[in-house]
Each structure stands twice: as C-alpha cells, then as structure tokens.
C-alpha cells in the first residue's frame, strides 16, 4: 500500500521497459476501474503503476475498410459515441457499455476488462464471438493474438513479463451480419453478470444463417464458446426451433458454480435463455 511508484510513459518502448524492469510487480493503469478498487481493498500491492494513457497508440478508434482498431485506453463511453462502430458491432459496444455506471463508462476500457480476466467480464463474450484480435506489445516486439487467448482463468491472463495490450481489432464483416450481448443481473444496472451471452451471426440474402458464434460468460472459469449452439443456427432462418436448440446447447455447455450471485441450476437455465434471446436480437439486427 505504500512505496508504490507511478509512471506515465509517453511511448510503447518506455512502457515496456518499465513493465519488464518491474518483473511482475507492475500494474497497468488504463481505465483504472478495477485497479483502483483492488488497490483500495488491499488485494494488490504493486511496486509500480504504469499509466498507459499518454501513449498515443492506445488512443482512438480507427476504421479501416470496415475493420476497426480500438485503442487500449478507449473508454466504453467513447465506443458508444462512435456511430460507425456501434452500427457494425452493436453487441460488442453494448457489452462494453454494460460495464458499470455512466461514471465507470467514462473510464473503463475493453482492454482492461479483457486483461482483468474476470469470468463475468461483460465485454469479453461479444469480442470473442466477433473473432476479435489484439495487438500485444512487449520486450520481443509485437504480436497479434486472438482475444480468446488472453484470459486463462479467473484473474489470470497470458501476457508475459513486460507485455501489455495495445489495441483490440474487430474484422470487417459482410452485409446482413450483426451481433448482440445480453447479461442477467438482479438489478437493472451496477451488478456483475450472473450469466452473459453473446451471439455474432451472418445471414445470407434470404435470411438463412451462414455463420454464427455463441459465447457464454460467467458460467465457467473462462468464457465458453458453444459450438453446438452455433451449429443450430447455421442453416436455419433463426426461427423458434433453432432458438430452442441454441438454448438447449447453451445450457448443456454451461459449467457454472454456486456462489453468492447465483446457483448452478439458475445459471444453467438462464445461459440458455439469454443465448437464444441474444441470437434472436442479433438476427433481427442482421435483417434490418
């Protein structure tokens, strides 16, 4: 709690050096909405906090031929204000925007949500369903990694010493494609997801699903990609029968625990409910 240093480097190289030199005792400050809570609660006692917000490569949302590159320090509020991003990836944006209050939205970042690696992280299922990748920078240069490979377990990520996520990339997508993310919370805001479900899909000209990805959050130590649910969607018109199959597949794939927020039985059932509802919303968006 004391002796903590604070650094705000202006370049990737400086940041990487600070992180590498700290040898695991460093924490990255992007939005800070998890970091400061953990600091205050005494859950962490880092030797140095490295604020990456002064690094220009972490800023802004760049659109390129239908693809998007979202800087690591872009807040949920900035994402919601980007009309093109919101139109192309409404599910990704709603996942990011569900993290906390308006106040949290002014700070919290998707990259932070990803690296914090909570099983209940709201922005992660939709990112994985979208096939997002991220740029990881570190002492050995930079690498492109699927976002699905960043979290490795509750609170654990695959980043090596000196590495951090610089940006998150969403691919260009065909016409008639969309996504959706739903979560279950007891209130209407301010809660951690008991269950989350993201669906990303592509329809052809007559409304038949040609590609789909269904990802669940908060029902296992990591997100769960439900191949059977995607298979139920592909080839269907996303009709009631397909949605029922999505629900069944999602419930079957869920491996939740009992805790203070929900029970195994509840999470298993609701994983199916939300997956099928998210699929219906994504399809509706793709059709319009």
């Amino acid at each position: 709690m004391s002796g903590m240093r604070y650094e705000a480097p202006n370049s990737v190289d400086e940041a990487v050096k600070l992180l590498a030199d700290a040898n695991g005792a460093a924490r990255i400050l992007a939005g800070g909405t998890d970091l400061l809570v953990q600091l205050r609660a005494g859950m962490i006692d880092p030797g140095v906090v490295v604020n990456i917000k002064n690094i220009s490569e972490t800023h802004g949302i760049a659109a390129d031929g239908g693809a998007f590159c979202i800087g690591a320090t872009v807040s949920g509020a900035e994402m919601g204000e980007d009309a093109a991003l919101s139109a192309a990836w409404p599910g990704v944006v709603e996942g990011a925007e569900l993290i906390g209050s308006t106040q949290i939205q002014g700070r919290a970042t998707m990259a932070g949500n990803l690296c914090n690696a909570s099983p209940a992280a709201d922005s992660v299922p939709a990112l994985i369903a979208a096939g997002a990748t991220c740029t990881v920078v570190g002492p050995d240069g930079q690498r492109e990694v699927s976002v699905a490979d960043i979290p490795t377990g509750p609170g654990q990520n695959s980043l090596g010493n000196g590495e951090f996520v610089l940006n998150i990339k969403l691919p260009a997508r065909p016409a008639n494609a969309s996504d959706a993310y739903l979560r279950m919370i007891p209130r209407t805001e301010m809660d951690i997801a008991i269950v989350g479900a993201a669906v990303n899909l592509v329809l052809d000209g007559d409304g038949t699903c040609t590609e789909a990805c269904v990802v669940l959050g908060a029902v296992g130590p990591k997100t769960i990609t439900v191949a059977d649910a995607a298979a139920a969607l592909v080839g269907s018109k996303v009709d009631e029968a397909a949605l029922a199959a999505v629900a069944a597949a999602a419930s079957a794939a869920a491996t939740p625990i009992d805790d203070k927020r929900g029970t195994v039985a509840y999470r298993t059932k609701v994983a199916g409910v939300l997956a099928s509802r998210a699929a219906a919303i994504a399809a509706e968006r793709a059709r319009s």
Partner: protein
Amino acid sequence: MAKHHITTTINGEEAEYLCEPQETLLDVLRDEVGLTGTKEGCSSGDCGACSVMLDGRLVCSCLVLGVEAQGKTVETIEGMADGEVLHPLQQKFLEEAALQCGYCTPGVLIAAKALLDINNDPTETEVRYWLAGNLCRCTGYDKIIRAVMDTAADMRGA
C-alpha cells in the same frame, strides 16, 4: 516515498498539490485541496457520491489517482454555481425537494449536469439509467428524476 507535484485546473482555477502515488483524486480533493463537497460513500465506484468531471467526462473521483489529474481540468460541486447564482439544477432540486439528507446530492447534481450538457431532452428512462450509478437511499429517486426532467424542460424553453 516521493510525492508528486501536480498542476491542474479545478473549477476553472489553476491548482497545485502534492500527492502520493496511491492517493485518489477524491482523497486529494478532500484532504489536500480542501474541497469537501465531493463525498465518499464507498471508494469502489458503486455509489457515485464522489462524482466529478475530469476533462469533461463524468467519473468517480475514487477511481482516479490524484496524479492522473496532471494537466487536466476537474469540475466539482463547488464550481457548479456561478457565484451567487445557482445552476438551474441546483435551484430546481431546492424547489422540488429532490434531496433529503443531501449526502448523495453533490454527486447527483454533477452527474445530472453532465447529462443535460449533452442532452437537454432526455426521457425518464434515459435519466434513470444515466443516474443509475448515483445511489440515493432517501428519496426513492422520484423527485430527483422529476427535477432533472423539469430542469431540462426549462432549459429547452429558455
């Protein structure tokens, strides 16, 4: 450990303070700068009592490090009125009794102003979701929501 010397702008005036790296903007505002109008309710970003504007964004000052304010602008409840003239939201909160104990009020007012600055015709649902991060245990929110919407209506009429 070395304290950081921070230069920032608070309520339109240049301000300087020394702060330790782990101190939050909330700690600094209250203990170093002496602006105690910003309240601490939870220190975990769950109650919104410490809401301030940082470079034009609504944030919980308990989730911002004091050192992060370097070169930025901070707006707190103490800067909301223009001298003796209350902001229309402050006036409406008084007229419509949109506060009881008053502890959440500074944060609610800062958050409500941030909304009306970008949207002067919000729906009730928009106001409720915008303010979902500002807990009030006294009012049941009814009079707060009405006061915000009535202020917006006045501002549109003006």
